[in-house]
Protein backbone atom coordinates (compact mmCIF):
# COMPACT_ATOMS: atom_id res chain seq x y z
CA UNK A 1 0.00 0.00 0.00
CA UNK A 2 1.19 3.53 -0.71
CA UNK A 3 2.11 5.91 2.07
CA UNK A 4 -1.07 7.89 1.57
CA UNK A 5 -3.01 4.62 1.78
CA UNK A 6 -1.45 3.81 5.12
CA UNK A 7 -2.48 7.17 6.48
CA UNK A 8 -5.97 6.54 5.26
CA UNK A 9 -6.03 3.19 7.06
CA UNK A 10 -4.98 4.78 10.30
CA UNK A 11 -7.78 7.32 10.51
CA UNK A 12 -10.48 7.22 7.89
CA UNK A 13 -13.75 8.99 8.58
CA UNK A 14 -16.95 8.72 6.58
CA UNK A 15 -16.29 12.14 5.04
CA UNK A 16 -12.72 11.19 4.12
CA UNK A 17 -13.78 7.85 2.67
CA UNK A 18 -16.38 9.55 0.49
CA UNK A 19 -13.86 12.22 -0.54
CA UNK A 20 -11.30 9.50 -1.33
CA UNK A 21 -13.82 7.60 -3.44
CA UNK A 22 -14.45 10.81 -5.39
CA UNK A 23 -10.73 11.51 -5.80
CA UNK A 24 -8.12 10.52 -8.38
CA UNK A 25 -5.85 8.23 -6.33
CA UNK A 26 -6.87 4.75 -7.48
CA UNK A 27 -5.41 3.03 -4.41
CA UNK A 28 -7.42 5.29 -2.11
CA UNK A 29 -10.58 4.84 -4.18
CA UNK A 30 -10.36 1.03 -4.02
CA UNK A 31 -9.70 1.14 -0.29
CA UNK A 32 -12.53 3.64 0.33
CA UNK A 33 -14.99 1.40 -1.53
CA UNK A 34 -14.02 -1.53 0.70
CA UNK A 35 -14.11 0.63 3.83
CA UNK A 36 -17.63 1.98 3.16
CA UNK A 37 -18.90 -1.60 2.92
CA UNK A 38 -16.91 -2.82 5.90
CA UNK A 39 -18.41 -0.13 8.14
CA UNK A 40 -21.81 -0.26 6.45
CA UNK A 41 -21.95 3.43 5.64
CA UNK A 42 -25.33 3.43 3.93
CA UNK A 43 -25.52 7.15 3.36
CA UNK A 44 -27.11 8.23 0.06
CA UNK A 45 -23.90 9.85 -1.13
CA UNK A 46 -21.86 6.70 -0.49
CA UNK A 47 -24.43 4.55 -2.30
CA UNK A 48 -24.48 6.90 -5.31
CA UNK A 49 -20.68 6.95 -5.57
CA UNK A 50 -20.40 3.18 -5.22
CA UNK A 51 -23.00 2.68 -7.95
CA UNK A 52 -20.98 5.03 -10.19
CA UNK A 53 -17.86 3.01 -9.37
CA UNK A 54 -19.53 -0.11 -10.82
CA UNK A 55 -18.95 1.50 -14.27
CA UNK A 56 -15.38 2.63 -13.53
CA UNK A 57 -12.90 2.32 -16.42
CA UNK A 58 -9.85 3.90 -14.77
CA UNK A 59 -8.78 1.08 -12.49
CA UNK A 60 -7.67 -1.94 -14.59
CA UNK A 61 -5.35 -4.82 -13.84
CA UNK A 62 -2.95 -6.16 -16.46
CA UNK A 63 -5.31 -9.08 -17.01
CA UNK A 64 -8.19 -6.66 -17.64
CA UNK A 65 -9.83 -6.90 -14.20
CA UNK A 66 -11.66 -4.07 -12.44
CA UNK A 67 -10.55 -3.95 -8.77
CA UNK A 68 -12.62 -0.85 -7.94
CA UNK A 69 -15.75 -2.36 -9.47
CA UNK A 70 -15.19 -5.55 -7.42
CA UNK A 71 -14.98 -3.65 -4.15
CA UNK A 72 -17.92 -1.42 -5.02
CA UNK A 73 -20.06 -4.46 -5.87
CA UNK A 74 -19.13 -6.15 -2.59
CA UNK A 75 -19.85 -3.01 -0.58
CA UNK A 76 -23.26 -2.43 -2.14
CA UNK A 77 -24.48 -5.80 -0.88
CA UNK A 78 -23.64 -4.77 2.66
CA UNK A 79 -25.32 -1.37 2.50
CA UNK A 80 -28.79 -2.80 1.90
CA UNK A 81 -29.95 -0.05 -0.47
CA UNK A 82 -32.32 -1.34 -3.19
CA UNK A 83 -31.14 1.35 -5.63
CA UNK A 84 -28.12 -0.91 -6.14
CA UNK A 85 -30.16 -3.82 -7.51
CA UNK A 86 -30.42 -2.69 -11.14
CA UNK A 87 -26.76 -1.61 -11.45
CA UNK A 88 -25.63 -4.87 -9.81
CA UNK A 89 -27.73 -6.85 -12.29
CA UNK A 90 -25.86 -4.91 -14.99
CA UNK A 91 -22.58 -6.00 -13.34
CA UNK A 92 -23.55 -9.65 -13.79
CA UNK A 93 -22.49 -9.25 -17.44
CA UNK A 94 -19.13 -7.61 -16.64
CA UNK A 95 -16.16 -9.27 -18.35
CA UNK A 96 -14.35 -9.56 -14.97
CA UNK A 97 -15.17 -12.87 -13.25
CA UNK A 98 -14.72 -11.36 -9.79
CA UNK A 99 -17.09 -8.47 -10.49
CA UNK A 100 -19.76 -10.99 -11.51
CA UNK A 101 -19.06 -13.06 -8.41
CA UNK A 102 -19.32 -10.02 -6.11
CA UNK A 103 -22.49 -8.86 -7.87
CA UNK A 104 -24.16 -12.27 -7.43
CA UNK A 105 -23.22 -12.34 -3.73
CA UNK A 106 -24.49 -8.82 -3.17
CA UNK A 107 -27.74 -9.46 -5.02
CA UNK A 108 -28.21 -12.48 -2.76
CA UNK A 109 -27.74 -10.22 0.27
CA UNK A 110 -30.14 -7.59 -1.04
CA UNK A 111 -32.75 -10.32 -1.50
CA UNK A 112 -34.48 -8.79 -4.53
CA UNK A 113 -35.91 -11.48 -6.80
CA UNK A 114 -35.70 -9.15 -9.80
CA UNK A 115 -32.25 -10.55 -10.59
CA UNK A 116 -33.31 -14.20 -10.94
CA UNK A 117 -33.67 -14.16 -14.76
CA UNK A 118 -30.17 -12.75 -15.21
CA UNK A 119 -28.71 -15.21 -12.69
CA UNK A 120 -30.29 -18.05 -14.67
CA UNK A 121 -28.75 -16.71 -17.90
CA UNK A 122 -25.36 -16.59 -16.24
CA UNK A 123 -25.78 -20.09 -14.80
CA UNK A 124 -26.32 -21.33 -18.35
CA UNK A 125 -23.30 -19.33 -19.56
CA UNK A 126 -25.48 -17.38 -21.94
CA UNK A 127 -23.98 -13.95 -21.30
CA UNK A 128 -21.53 -12.91 -24.00
CA UNK A 129 -18.21 -11.22 -23.26
CA UNK A 130 -17.71 -12.79 -19.83
CA UNK A 131 -14.18 -14.02 -19.09
CA UNK A 132 -13.41 -17.06 -16.89
CA UNK A 133 -11.52 -16.87 -13.60
CA UNK A 134 -7.90 -15.91 -14.37
CA UNK A 135 -6.64 -18.36 -11.73
CA UNK A 136 -8.95 -21.29 -12.53
CA UNK A 137 -9.87 -21.20 -16.25
CA UNK A 138 -12.32 -24.10 -15.76
CA UNK A 139 -14.32 -21.68 -13.58
CA UNK A 140 -16.17 -20.11 -16.50
CA UNK A 141 -18.77 -18.41 -14.34
CA UNK A 142 -18.87 -17.86 -10.55
CA UNK A 143 -21.21 -20.83 -10.35
CA UNK A 144 -21.02 -21.18 -6.58
CA UNK A 145 -22.09 -17.57 -5.98
CA UNK A 146 -24.84 -17.83 -8.60
CA UNK A 147 -26.24 -21.08 -7.16
CA UNK A 148 -26.11 -19.77 -3.61
CA UNK A 149 -27.98 -16.62 -4.62
CA UNK A 150 -30.66 -18.61 -6.46
CA UNK A 151 -31.13 -20.84 -3.41
CA UNK A 152 -31.39 -17.94 -0.98
CA UNK A 153 -33.82 -16.11 -3.26
CA UNK A 154 -36.05 -19.20 -3.39
CA UNK A 155 -35.83 -19.39 -7.18
CA UNK A 156 -37.56 -22.75 -7.67
CA UNK A 157 -37.36 -22.23 -11.44
CA UNK A 158 -33.62 -22.90 -11.03
CA UNK A 159 -34.05 -26.40 -9.61
CA UNK A 160 -33.60 -28.40 -12.83
CA UNK A 161 -30.74 -26.19 -14.00
CA UNK A 162 -28.97 -26.58 -10.65
CA UNK A 163 -29.04 -30.38 -10.53
CA UNK A 164 -26.26 -31.00 -13.11
CA UNK A 165 -23.92 -28.90 -10.93
CA UNK A 166 -24.01 -31.69 -8.32
CA UNK A 167 -21.54 -33.42 -10.71
CA UNK A 168 -19.36 -30.37 -11.39
CA UNK A 169 -15.58 -31.04 -11.22
CA UNK A 170 -15.05 -28.27 -8.63
CA UNK A 171 -16.09 -29.29 -5.11
CA UNK A 172 -17.14 -25.78 -4.07
CA UNK A 173 -19.59 -25.68 -6.98
CA UNK A 174 -20.99 -29.11 -6.07
CA UNK A 175 -21.54 -27.93 -2.49
CA UNK A 176 -23.23 -24.73 -3.67
CA UNK A 177 -25.59 -26.80 -5.83
CA UNK A 178 -26.45 -29.05 -2.87
CA UNK A 179 -26.99 -26.00 -0.69
CA UNK A 180 -29.29 -24.34 -3.23
CA UNK A 181 -31.23 -27.53 -3.94
CA UNK A 182 -31.71 -28.01 -0.20
CA UNK A 183 -33.28 -24.58 0.01
CA UNK A 184 -35.40 -25.09 -3.10
CA UNK A 185 -36.63 -28.59 -2.21
CA UNK A 186 -40.37 -29.08 -1.91
CA UNK A 187 -40.34 -31.67 0.87
CA UNK A 188 -38.14 -32.20 3.96
CA UNK A 189 -37.16 -35.63 2.62
CA UNK A 190 -35.92 -34.17 -0.63
CA UNK A 191 -34.09 -31.41 1.25
CA UNK A 192 -32.41 -33.97 3.51
CA UNK A 193 -31.07 -35.78 0.44
CA UNK A 194 -29.17 -32.62 -0.56
CA UNK A 195 -28.22 -31.76 3.02
CA UNK A 196 -26.63 -35.20 3.34
CA UNK A 197 -24.36 -34.47 0.38
CA UNK A 198 -22.87 -31.66 2.48
CA UNK A 199 -22.68 -33.92 5.53
CA UNK A 200 -20.63 -36.36 3.42
CA UNK A 201 -18.30 -33.51 2.54
CA UNK A 202 -17.51 -33.01 6.25
CA UNK A 203 -15.45 -36.19 6.23
CA UNK A 204 -13.34 -35.25 3.20
CA UNK A 205 -9.54 -35.10 3.33
CA UNK A 206 -9.07 -31.40 2.61
CA UNK A 207 -9.47 -29.05 5.58
CA UNK A 208 -10.42 -26.11 3.34
CA UNK A 209 -13.26 -28.13 1.84
CA UNK A 210 -14.45 -29.32 5.25
CA UNK A 211 -14.54 -25.69 6.33
CA UNK A 212 -16.54 -24.80 3.22
CA UNK A 213 -19.06 -27.57 3.92
CA UNK A 214 -19.38 -26.39 7.53
CA UNK A 215 -20.19 -22.89 6.30
CA UNK A 216 -22.77 -24.22 3.83
CA UNK A 217 -24.49 -26.38 6.46
CA UNK A 218 -24.58 -23.42 8.84
CA UNK A 219 -26.11 -21.26 6.13
CA UNK A 220 -28.96 -23.70 5.46
CA UNK A 221 -29.30 -24.78 9.11
CA UNK A 222 -29.80 -28.48 8.34
CA UNK A 223 -30.68 -30.15 11.65
CA UNK A 224 -29.71 -33.59 10.34
CA UNK A 225 -26.10 -32.40 10.18
CA UNK A 226 -25.77 -31.35 13.84
CA UNK A 227 -23.83 -34.36 15.17
CA UNK A 228 -21.66 -34.60 12.06
CA UNK A 229 -20.75 -30.91 12.39
CA UNK A 230 -19.72 -31.44 16.01
CA UNK A 231 -17.53 -34.39 14.98
CA UNK A 232 -15.82 -32.72 12.01
CA UNK A 233 -12.04 -32.37 12.05
CA UNK A 234 -11.92 -28.57 12.04
CA UNK A 235 -11.61 -25.65 14.43
CA UNK A 236 -14.20 -25.50 17.20
CA UNK A 237 -14.89 -21.88 16.33
CA UNK A 238 -16.05 -22.85 12.82
CA UNK A 239 -18.12 -25.76 14.11
CA UNK A 240 -19.78 -23.44 16.61
CA UNK A 241 -20.68 -20.97 13.86
CA UNK A 242 -22.18 -23.78 11.78
CA UNK A 243 -24.16 -25.09 14.76
CA UNK A 244 -25.35 -21.56 15.46
CA UNK A 245 -26.93 -21.55 12.00
CA UNK A 246 -28.64 -24.87 12.75
CA UNK A 247 -29.81 -23.63 16.16
CA UNK A 248 -31.20 -20.37 14.83
CA UNK A 249 -33.13 -22.21 12.13
CA UNK A 250 -34.69 -24.34 14.88
CA UNK A 251 -35.55 -21.26 16.93
CA UNK A 252 -37.22 -19.63 13.93
CA UNK A 253 -39.40 -22.72 13.64
CA UNK A 254 -40.30 -22.82 17.32
CA UNK A 255 -43.98 -21.93 17.77
CA UNK A 256 -43.65 -20.33 21.22
CA UNK A 257 -40.04 -19.13 21.32
CA UNK A 258 -39.04 -22.01 23.60
CA UNK A 259 -36.16 -24.19 22.44
CA UNK A 260 -37.43 -27.31 20.72
CA UNK A 261 -35.91 -30.67 21.75
CA UNK A 262 -33.79 -30.46 18.59
CA UNK A 263 -32.62 -26.96 19.53
CA UNK A 264 -31.63 -28.20 23.00
CA UNK A 265 -29.71 -31.07 21.41
CA UNK A 266 -27.80 -28.57 19.27
CA UNK A 267 -27.00 -26.41 22.30
CA UNK A 268 -25.66 -29.45 24.15
CA UNK A 269 -23.37 -30.12 21.18
CA UNK A 270 -22.28 -26.48 21.21
CA UNK A 271 -21.60 -26.48 24.95
CA UNK A 272 -19.19 -29.38 24.48
CA UNK A 273 -17.20 -27.30 21.97
CA UNK A 274 -16.80 -24.20 24.14
Amino acid at each position, binding site marked *: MTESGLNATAALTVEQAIANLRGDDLGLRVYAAWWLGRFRVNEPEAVTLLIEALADEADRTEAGGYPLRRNAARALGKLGDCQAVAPLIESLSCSDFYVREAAAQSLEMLGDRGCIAQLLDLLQNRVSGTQPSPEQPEFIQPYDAILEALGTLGATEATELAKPFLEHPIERVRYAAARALYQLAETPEEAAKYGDILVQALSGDDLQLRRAALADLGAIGYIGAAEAIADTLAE*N*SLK*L*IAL*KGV*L*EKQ*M*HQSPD*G*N*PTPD*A*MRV*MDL*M*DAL*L
Partner: protein
Amino acid sequence: MSDSSSSLIQAVEDADSAALLVAVQNLAAARLEVSIPTLVATLGYNNSGAAIAAVEGLIQLGEPAVPALLEQLDRQNHAARAWAICALAEIGDPRGFMTLLGAATADFSLQVRRAAARGLGTMKWQWFPTDLVEIAQEEAMEALLFVAQQDEEWIVRYSAIAGLEALATTIARTHPAWAAHIQTQLEQLERNDSSWAVGARARMAQQQQQAAESSLQSSDPREDASSLGSETNWQITLEKLYDRKGQERLVLAEGDPRRYRSLAMAISQKLDTT
Protein backbone atom coordinates in the same frame (compact mmCIF):
# COMPACT_ATOMS: atom_id res chain seq x y z
CA MET B 1 12.13 -42.05 33.65
CA SER B 2 11.33 -45.32 31.91
CA ASP B 3 12.78 -46.12 28.49
CA SER B 4 9.39 -45.94 26.81
CA SER B 5 8.52 -42.52 28.28
CA SER B 6 11.90 -41.05 27.36
CA SER B 7 11.61 -42.35 23.82
CA LEU B 8 8.13 -40.83 23.50
CA ILE B 9 9.46 -37.49 24.71
CA GLN B 10 12.51 -37.77 22.46
CA ALA B 11 10.19 -38.41 19.50
CA VAL B 12 8.43 -35.10 20.11
CA GLU B 13 11.68 -33.20 20.50
CA ASP B 14 13.15 -34.67 17.31
CA ALA B 15 10.02 -34.50 15.15
CA ASP B 16 9.80 -32.30 12.08
CA SER B 17 6.53 -30.44 11.66
CA ALA B 18 4.89 -33.26 9.67
CA ALA B 19 5.70 -35.89 12.30
CA LEU B 20 5.06 -33.63 15.29
CA LEU B 21 1.32 -34.17 15.46
CA VAL B 22 1.62 -37.95 15.72
CA ALA B 23 4.49 -37.75 18.20
CA VAL B 24 2.51 -35.37 20.43
CA GLN B 25 -0.61 -37.51 20.17
CA ASN B 26 1.40 -40.55 21.25
CA LEU B 27 2.96 -38.71 24.14
CA ALA B 28 -0.37 -37.24 25.25
CA ALA B 29 -2.04 -40.65 25.09
CA ALA B 30 0.59 -42.12 27.42
CA ARG B 31 -0.62 -39.79 30.22
CA LEU B 32 2.76 -39.46 31.90
CA GLU B 33 3.43 -36.68 34.37
CA VAL B 34 7.03 -36.69 33.22
CA SER B 35 5.79 -35.56 29.79
CA ILE B 36 4.28 -32.31 31.10
CA PRO B 37 7.20 -29.97 30.29
CA THR B 38 7.39 -31.37 26.76
CA LEU B 39 3.64 -31.03 26.19
CA VAL B 40 3.67 -27.47 27.51
CA ALA B 41 6.63 -26.61 25.27
CA THR B 42 4.63 -27.92 22.29
CA LEU B 43 2.05 -25.16 22.86
CA GLY B 44 4.62 -22.70 21.56
CA TYR B 45 5.60 -24.56 18.38
CA ASN B 46 3.14 -22.73 16.12
CA ASN B 47 1.50 -26.00 15.06
CA SER B 48 -2.17 -25.89 15.99
CA GLY B 49 -2.82 -29.60 15.45
CA ALA B 50 0.00 -30.50 17.83
CA ALA B 51 -1.10 -27.83 20.29
CA ILE B 52 -4.65 -29.23 20.36
CA ALA B 53 -3.27 -32.71 21.04
CA ALA B 54 -1.00 -31.34 23.77
CA VAL B 55 -3.87 -29.40 25.39
CA GLU B 56 -5.97 -32.56 25.44
CA GLY B 57 -3.11 -34.49 27.03
CA LEU B 58 -2.56 -31.80 29.66
CA ILE B 59 -6.28 -31.73 30.49
CA GLN B 60 -6.20 -35.50 31.01
CA LEU B 61 -3.24 -35.11 33.37
CA GLY B 62 -5.15 -32.37 35.20
CA GLU B 63 -3.89 -30.91 38.45
CA PRO B 64 -0.20 -31.93 38.11
CA ALA B 65 0.00 -29.93 34.86
CA VAL B 66 -1.14 -26.67 36.44
CA PRO B 67 2.23 -25.24 37.67
CA ALA B 68 3.84 -25.72 34.25
CA LEU B 69 0.85 -24.12 32.54
CA LEU B 70 0.97 -21.11 34.86
CA GLU B 71 4.66 -20.75 34.12
CA GLN B 72 3.89 -20.74 30.40
CA LEU B 73 1.62 -17.72 30.86
CA ASP B 74 4.59 -15.52 31.72
CA ARG B 75 6.43 -16.18 28.49
CA GLN B 76 6.02 -13.81 25.58
CA ASN B 77 4.32 -16.24 23.23
CA HIS B 78 0.70 -15.22 22.63
CA ALA B 79 -0.40 -18.44 20.97
CA ALA B 80 1.14 -20.63 23.68
CA ARG B 81 -0.42 -18.44 26.33
CA ALA B 82 -3.83 -18.82 24.69
CA TRP B 83 -3.51 -22.62 24.59
CA ALA B 84 -2.37 -22.69 28.23
CA ILE B 85 -5.43 -20.68 29.28
CA CYS B 86 -7.70 -23.07 27.39
CA ALA B 87 -6.11 -26.00 29.25
CA LEU B 88 -6.45 -24.21 32.61
CA ALA B 89 -10.12 -23.48 31.84
CA GLU B 90 -10.79 -27.14 31.27
CA ILE B 91 -8.78 -28.40 34.27
CA GLY B 92 -10.60 -26.02 36.63
CA ASP B 93 -7.84 -25.90 39.25
CA PRO B 94 -8.13 -22.95 41.69
CA ARG B 95 -4.59 -21.81 40.88
CA GLY B 96 -5.79 -20.94 37.38
CA PHE B 97 -8.75 -18.96 38.66
CA MET B 98 -7.27 -15.46 38.55
CA THR B 99 -5.94 -16.08 35.06
CA LEU B 100 -9.38 -17.13 33.89
CA LEU B 101 -11.03 -14.06 35.42
CA GLY B 102 -8.63 -11.82 33.53
CA ALA B 103 -8.86 -13.81 30.31
CA ALA B 104 -12.67 -14.06 30.23
CA THR B 105 -13.13 -10.33 30.65
CA ALA B 106 -10.19 -8.81 28.80
CA ASP B 107 -8.24 -11.17 26.54
CA PHE B 108 -8.00 -9.91 22.96
CA SER B 109 -8.63 -13.38 21.50
CA LEU B 110 -12.28 -14.37 21.36
CA GLN B 111 -11.34 -18.06 21.51
CA VAL B 112 -9.54 -17.45 24.81
CA ARG B 113 -12.44 -15.41 26.22
CA ARG B 114 -14.82 -18.16 25.14
CA ALA B 115 -12.84 -20.94 26.84
CA ALA B 116 -12.17 -18.89 29.97
CA ALA B 117 -15.81 -17.90 30.42
CA ARG B 118 -16.93 -21.49 30.25
CA GLY B 119 -14.11 -22.49 32.63
CA LEU B 120 -15.15 -19.92 35.24
CA GLY B 121 -18.52 -21.62 35.53
CA THR B 122 -17.07 -25.11 35.83
CA MET B 123 -14.19 -24.57 38.27
CA LYS B 124 -13.44 -27.44 40.64
CA TRP B 125 -15.03 -25.51 43.49
CA GLN B 126 -14.50 -28.46 45.84
CA TRP B 127 -10.73 -27.89 45.49
CA PHE B 128 -11.02 -24.37 46.94
CA PRO B 129 -10.60 -24.00 50.68
CA THR B 130 -13.90 -23.47 52.44
CA ASP B 131 -13.19 -19.90 53.47
CA LEU B 132 -12.35 -18.78 49.95
CA VAL B 133 -14.88 -20.56 47.83
CA GLU B 134 -17.54 -17.93 48.45
CA ILE B 135 -15.52 -14.91 47.33
CA ALA B 136 -14.27 -16.82 44.30
CA GLN B 137 -17.79 -17.81 43.27
CA GLU B 138 -19.00 -14.25 43.65
CA GLU B 139 -16.11 -12.99 41.51
CA ALA B 140 -16.89 -15.64 38.90
CA MET B 141 -20.56 -14.68 38.88
CA GLU B 142 -19.83 -10.98 38.46
CA ALA B 143 -17.29 -11.62 35.72
CA LEU B 144 -19.65 -13.95 33.85
CA LEU B 145 -22.57 -11.53 34.06
CA PHE B 146 -20.32 -8.78 32.75
CA VAL B 147 -19.14 -10.93 29.85
CA ALA B 148 -22.65 -12.19 29.04
CA GLN B 149 -23.91 -8.60 28.84
CA GLN B 150 -20.96 -6.79 27.32
CA ASP B 151 -18.78 -8.97 25.12
CA GLU B 152 -19.07 -7.99 21.47
CA GLU B 153 -18.80 -11.58 20.20
CA TRP B 154 -21.92 -13.74 20.31
CA ILE B 155 -19.95 -16.91 21.07
CA VAL B 156 -18.30 -15.38 24.13
CA ARG B 157 -21.67 -14.23 25.48
CA TYR B 158 -23.04 -17.69 24.71
CA SER B 159 -20.16 -19.30 26.57
CA ALA B 160 -20.61 -16.99 29.57
CA ILE B 161 -24.27 -18.04 29.76
CA ALA B 162 -23.25 -21.72 29.71
CA GLY B 163 -20.82 -20.85 32.53
CA LEU B 164 -23.54 -19.02 34.47
CA GLU B 165 -25.82 -22.03 34.16
CA ALA B 166 -23.15 -24.31 35.64
CA LEU B 167 -22.35 -21.82 38.40
CA ALA B 168 -26.02 -21.29 39.26
CA THR B 169 -26.45 -25.04 39.67
CA THR B 170 -23.44 -25.17 41.99
CA ILE B 171 -24.53 -22.32 44.24
CA ALA B 172 -28.29 -22.93 44.18
CA ARG B 173 -28.31 -24.29 47.71
CA THR B 174 -25.51 -22.29 49.32
CA HIS B 175 -26.49 -18.91 47.83
CA PRO B 176 -30.10 -18.92 46.68
CA ALA B 177 -30.10 -15.12 46.39
CA TRP B 178 -27.24 -15.26 43.86
CA ALA B 179 -29.03 -17.98 41.95
CA ALA B 180 -32.13 -15.78 41.82
CA HIS B 181 -30.00 -12.86 40.63
CA ILE B 182 -28.54 -15.00 37.84
CA GLN B 183 -32.05 -16.10 36.87
CA THR B 184 -33.20 -12.47 36.57
CA GLN B 185 -30.17 -11.54 34.53
CA LEU B 186 -30.74 -14.52 32.21
CA GLU B 187 -34.27 -13.31 31.57
CA GLN B 188 -32.92 -9.93 30.54
CA LEU B 189 -30.23 -11.48 28.36
CA GLU B 190 -32.85 -13.56 26.62
CA ARG B 191 -34.92 -10.47 25.87
CA ASN B 192 -32.12 -8.11 24.94
CA ASP B 193 -29.45 -10.06 23.09
CA SER B 194 -29.30 -9.38 19.36
CA SER B 195 -28.32 -12.99 18.61
CA TRP B 196 -31.01 -15.67 18.44
CA ALA B 197 -28.50 -18.31 19.51
CA VAL B 198 -27.54 -16.38 22.64
CA GLY B 199 -31.20 -15.77 23.46
CA ALA B 200 -31.94 -19.47 23.06
CA ARG B 201 -29.04 -20.41 25.34
CA ALA B 202 -30.26 -17.96 27.99
CA ARG B 203 -33.72 -19.50 27.74
CA MET B 204 -32.35 -23.02 28.15
CA ALA B 205 -30.19 -21.94 31.09
CA GLN B 206 -33.27 -20.60 32.88
CA GLN B 207 -35.12 -23.84 32.29
CA GLN B 208 -32.18 -25.94 33.52
CA GLN B 209 -31.85 -23.76 36.60
CA GLN B 210 -35.52 -24.16 37.40
CA ALA B 211 -35.25 -27.93 36.94
CA ALA B 212 -32.19 -28.03 39.21
CA GLU B 213 -33.94 -26.01 41.91
CA SER B 214 -36.77 -28.49 42.08
CA SER B 215 -34.34 -31.34 42.75
CA LEU B 216 -32.01 -29.76 45.30
CA GLN B 217 -31.44 -32.85 47.42
CA SER B 218 -28.04 -33.54 45.89
CA SER B 219 -24.83 -34.51 47.65
CA ASP B 220 -22.53 -32.15 49.53
CA PRO B 221 -20.57 -30.26 46.86
CA ARG B 222 -17.42 -30.32 48.99
CA GLU B 223 -17.25 -34.01 49.77
CA ASP B 224 -14.75 -34.50 46.95
CA ALA B 225 -12.01 -32.40 48.54
CA SER B 226 -8.71 -32.64 46.71
CA SER B 227 -5.25 -33.38 47.95
CA LEU B 228 -4.42 -29.67 47.83
CA GLY B 229 -3.78 -28.60 51.39
CA SER B 230 -4.77 -25.25 52.84
CA GLU B 231 -1.07 -24.34 53.07
CA THR B 232 -0.54 -24.13 49.32
CA ASN B 233 0.67 -20.89 47.82
CA TRP B 234 -2.46 -20.19 45.94
CA GLN B 235 -4.43 -19.89 49.12
CA ILE B 236 -2.18 -17.08 50.25
CA THR B 237 -2.69 -15.63 46.82
CA LEU B 238 -6.43 -15.74 47.12
CA GLU B 239 -6.26 -14.14 50.54
CA LYS B 240 -4.34 -11.28 48.98
CA LEU B 241 -7.11 -11.11 46.43
CA TYR B 242 -9.61 -10.89 49.24
CA ASP B 243 -7.80 -7.91 50.76
CA ARG B 244 -7.29 -6.31 47.42
CA LYS B 245 -10.86 -6.76 46.30
CA GLY B 246 -12.14 -4.20 48.81
CA GLN B 247 -9.65 -1.60 47.58
CA GLU B 248 -10.35 -2.24 43.91
CA ARG B 249 -14.04 -1.70 44.39
CA LEU B 250 -13.40 1.86 45.52
CA VAL B 251 -11.78 2.77 42.23
CA LEU B 252 -13.32 0.69 39.49
CA ALA B 253 -16.95 0.06 38.78
CA GLU B 254 -18.56 -3.33 39.17
CA GLY B 255 -17.74 -5.50 36.21
CA ASP B 256 -14.99 -3.24 34.92
CA PRO B 257 -12.56 -5.55 33.14
CA ARG B 258 -9.56 -3.58 34.38
CA ARG B 259 -10.40 -4.83 37.82
CA TYR B 260 -9.82 -8.41 36.84
CA ARG B 261 -6.84 -7.62 34.68
CA SER B 262 -4.98 -5.86 37.46
CA LEU B 263 -5.94 -8.55 39.94
CA ALA B 264 -4.71 -11.22 37.59
CA MET B 265 -1.43 -9.39 37.17
CA ALA B 266 -1.01 -9.17 40.90
CA ILE B 267 -1.67 -12.87 41.18
CA SER B 268 0.77 -13.88 38.49
CA GLN B 269 3.46 -11.76 40.12
CA LYS B 270 2.65 -13.40 43.40
CA LEU B 271 2.98 -16.82 41.86
CA ASP B 272 6.38 -15.87 40.50
CA THR B 273 7.73 -14.91 43.86
CA THR B 274 6.27 -17.67 46.01
